[in-house]
């Protein structure tokens, strides 16, 4: 049985993302607040880049905040 934190991070852990970075940004967000994502493209996968996967995961993880292409509030993520 997974803990609630493991469950919350299940998708990100599978992708090897740094859960702490996502959690730290999420606590700053309000519902419907606009934010943008700043992430390098990273390695190219079969369909999209690793950076695009980060954007997708952020869109999922930060809901009900809303991802837009440009905003004052920016989530910065770098690959280790």
């Amino acid at each position, binding site marked *: *049985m*997974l803990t609630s934190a*493991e*469950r*919350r991070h*299940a*998708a990100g*852990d*599978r992708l090897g993302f740094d859960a702490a970075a996502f959690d730290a940004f999420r606590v700053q967000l309000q*519902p*419907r607040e606009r934010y943008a*994502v700043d992430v390098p493209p990273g390695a190219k996968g*079969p*369909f*999209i880049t690793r950076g*695009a996967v980060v*954007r*997708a*995961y952020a*869109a*999922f993880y930060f*809901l*009900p905040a*809303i*991802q*837009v*292409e440009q905003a004052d509030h920016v989530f910065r993520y770098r690959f280790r």
Partner: protein
Amino acid sequence: MRMAALLGANALMLVAGLGMLPLLGIARSWRLLVFRCGLAYLCGLVLVGIVSAQLALVQVSFGWIGLGVTAALSLAFCAWRLNGTERPGWRRPGWTSAVGFAALIALIIDYGRAFRVAPLNRYDAWAIWALKGHALYAFGWADPVVFAGASYRFANLDYPLLLPSLEAVGFRAMGAFDTRLVHVQFLLFLVAALLALLALLRDRVPAVILWLSLFALALAPAVFDQLLTAYADLPLALVFGVGVAAAGRWVVTNERWALALATFCFAGALLTKNEGSLFVLAVFLGLLAAAHARWRALAVAAALDVLLLLPWRIYVHIHDIHDINYSFGDSFDYERLRGRLGVGPIAFRTLAGQMLDPTQWGLLMPIFAALLVVALLTGLRALPLFALVWTIVAWLGLSWIYVISRFEYSSYLDSTKERVVASIVVGSAALVPLLAAESWTRLSGRGRDRARTGGGSIP
């Protein structure tokens, strides 16, 4: 508590589905309502899915109140429509049915141990379906800020909303975006489909054949594995499969309610995934080939399905949303396709391999193919023709998608081949009991008796 809320919401969906039985002409008396009540749960899931998906486009959220009102309307409609009709009598269930139900309950409980704890960690599950379900739950409707937002293009925004709407109904019922219990809803799709197939075919197919067919489907490894991913392919396949079985019954018996049920299920399939359009088109072509004299009924059925899809297509058009994977319009771009035509045969063979893979689907497809041959040899024409046409068209259509896809074909094929065939396999498996029973009837010489008395016999 959340599990109880989710199951409570599904119980209301079942009640809502009861009203669909007299509405679709499936039950014209209380006796038939009880006899075919196994169809109610799937009808309720599809009804709530369609209604909540349409309401999501016009800023109306569907939760406990919606479920309660729909269930109450359903009961009132049953009471009004069936007033004064024949009441059900008590019949002792046969041993086969008793054993079948006991084994089915045991199987679902066993599956449930995995579904109630599974993590939501597969890409499409979170990036497409749960993301949209969460957004519908959080915003109350298909707010274009997400559902047409440039930053959300990765989420296949052109996919229709039945599945995320059902997820959102569950989240509203539970009062939370629960990434664990959302899997239980997928298992409940399997329960609903199995009960529906049982109720749909029990008066046409001997109980032993029917139960064996249902377990062959339920025990196929891919059914468990793919449902657990929380992807839409298996829910699509299950709803579509019941529609195919109903369509097959209509081909054989010409009962109007069977076509009505098929049409309703196909509407559900159309609103679940874009690929649903291909499968539904394939089925209507199959029906036209097998029952062309009844083309007027088919035209009405197809028009109703298109009508139910229309609001979503209007939303897609208004917000200028495009498919990021492929466009059937590219089928006419010869310059682009010239270098990719070789992909077709590769995809065709690869998908065949997937459908025949016993580690995925058991022997469902070989049994289906064998029964097709037997049916033809026994002199049956319409049912095997229907089965043959729709499966071939769907198979060719799926293969064509890889030709016109914007992705590098081998990666696209590799990552999707296991699940895209689900609707063909499940739809074929849903026809297996009917093919077997009709062939057996022919062989045993009862075909002439049935033709003389018309329609199916109801105990």
